């Protein structure tokens, strides 16, 4: 055993100075390690949606920080999150990214586990010189698991705040997007696209929840194409900033709340499917709420630390190292709507997102260049001060700013620092 003393942890508050963030937060492997310990292995992390594992035996592979896990629906119909690690000598139990199985058989020495986690066969167990108690070797469940309307979250920490406390005010916005289904249910059953970029994981939420500041510069041609496609001109959105759009919420969550910004009507007569959908929504939510929901852009939201909901999809943020990240897009299908509505959602999604999309690649290219720029340390501070003077306190404990303000970033970093210092949950 080594007896060397650990140096006291540095004061992570120094990473943020007023409205400036230090570049090392995106660059320093030690800080990344601390993030794993104090963020990824403490807080609730989004795993997936129950609709990804609809039948007993269905499973998907995921990660919490750098730790491999599987989300599986057992033969008892319960969804569980297990560490993807054999109890014998720690081999990966499940290699496939998704599938259906009644049991997981470790390829190394063929120990097998039921899809509810019990050890079934330790193989050649006559060789063990005691009565091996199978009950001592089930797949290990991640310490805490819970769901919100089918969105499964887990935390590897034994203790901490409840999922309800963690989500806090962001549920209002989660509800808004799930309520776009006239049955109030979504399905993540249309597959996924996965993008890998050479940059820190924090660029993804920061950039994704940015209102309109970068749009006119990096998405210019995408806006033009969108106008050509839909008849809606969004290129001038930035000319008049809308207040109370960019929101930070307690808990590090971020929202772009467009409820106060009605959309221009799409030119032309709506299709029969669209009309039917509008009627379904009115029947479920009443005229007023339905019109509000369909007449504005749904909120964009970020649930700290790894789930983003943008327009057509749920996006996960998966750190690989301090300067490498994978983000996966899962298109969100709405239950109960006419087929054409979901077909259009998927088509809109492919237009905008994924490695070959017309919008998000502009952002990802920026994230990679951001990582390169971050290595110039002359004045090692990023400035996130836009709109600070006009920021408003909100009743939910968060703050709000205009469409191009950096209010969301300031909220994110406040929460980040409190976690890194170990004084929040």
């Amino acid at each position, binding site marked *: 055993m080594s007896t060397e003393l650990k140096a006291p942890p540095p004061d992570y508050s120094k990473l943020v100075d007023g409205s400036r963030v230090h570049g090392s937060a995106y660059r320093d492997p030690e800080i990344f390690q601390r993030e794993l310990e104090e963020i990824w292995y403490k807080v609730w992390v989004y795993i997936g949606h129950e609709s990804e594992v609809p039948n007993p035996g269905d499973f998907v592979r995921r990660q919490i920080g750098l730790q491999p896990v599987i989300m599986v629906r057992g033969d008892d119909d319960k969804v569980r999150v297990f560490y993807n690690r054999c109890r014998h000598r720690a081999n990966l139990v499940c290699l496939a990214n998704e599938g259906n199985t009644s049991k997981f058989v470790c390829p190394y020495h063929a120990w097998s586990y039921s899809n509810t986690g019990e050890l079934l066969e330790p193989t050649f167990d006559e060789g063990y010189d005691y009565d091996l108690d199978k009950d001592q070797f089930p797949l290990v469940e991640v310490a805490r698991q819970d769901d919100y309307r089918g969105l499964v979250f887990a935390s590897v920490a034994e203790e901490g705040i409840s999922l309800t406390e963690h989500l806090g005010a962001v549920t209002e916005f989660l509800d808004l997007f799930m309520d776009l289904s006239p049955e109030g249910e979504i399905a993540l059953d249309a597959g996924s696209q*996965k993008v*890998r970029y050479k940059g820190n994981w924090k660029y993804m939420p920061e950039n994704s929840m940015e209102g309109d500041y970068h749009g006119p510069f990096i998405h*210019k041609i995408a806006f033009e194409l969108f106008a050509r496609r839909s008849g809606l001109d969004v290129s001038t959105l930035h000319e008049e900033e809308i207040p109370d759009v960019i929101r930070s919420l307690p808990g590090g969550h971020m929202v772009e709340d467009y409820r106060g910004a009605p959309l221009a009507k799409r030119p032309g007569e709506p299709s029969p499917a669209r009309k039917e959908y509008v009627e379904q929504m009115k029947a479920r939510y009443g005229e007023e709420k339905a019109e509000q929901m369909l007449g504005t852009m749904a909120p964009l939201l970020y649930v700290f630390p790894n789930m983003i909901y943008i327009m057509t999809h749920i996006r996960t943020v998966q750190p690989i190292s301090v300067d490498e990240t994978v983000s996966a897009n899962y298109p969100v299908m709405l239950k109960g709507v006419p087929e054409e509505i979901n077909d259009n959602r998927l088509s809109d*999604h492919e237009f905008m997102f994924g490695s070959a999309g017309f919008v998000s*690649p502009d952002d990802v290219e920026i994230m990679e260049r951001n990582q390169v720029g971050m290595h110039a340390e002359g004045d090692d501070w990023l400035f996130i001060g836009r709109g600070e003077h006009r920021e408003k306190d909100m009743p939910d404990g968060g703050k709000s700013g205009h469409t191009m303000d950096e209010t969301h970033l300031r909220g994110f970093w406040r929460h980040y620092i409190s976690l890194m210092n170990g004084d929040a949950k």
Partner: protein
Amino acid sequence: MTPEHFLYHEAQLMDEARYDEWFALWLEGSTYWVPADPDQDWLSRRVSIINDDYIRLEQRVDRLKSGSVLAVEETRGAMRRLVSNITVTRDEGDEVSVESNFMLGIARSADQQFWMGRSFHELRREGDTFRIAGKKVLLINSRREMPLLQVLI
């Protein structure tokens, strides 16, 4: 022109980012598909990496050639591909189906990327050359996480 020579020609247009000439190879009504899951059915509601009809293909080309797409800057003049293992799987009148493998290298400032896959062309004879009525590309890494794909494949 043989189907092989047509594929070599198409590859050169893609490598040299000759977007308009490449788009002119396509017939109206054609489709261009790069599934995210190689086993997926054309008609199933599963997300693709690229799923273009002719209109969206034109938008793709217009975007790439606009000069304002950041991810395109680095790839100009910095890619080449090999096309091989060419097999004509159907040859009926004017309709020719061809399968081929490709390997594409792209030099970027941070690294050198390579992409590999199998292409399935539906070609139509036109005079002494061909036009593309449909193209499907199965990337070997389509199910996995991948870098940006902002070039023609």
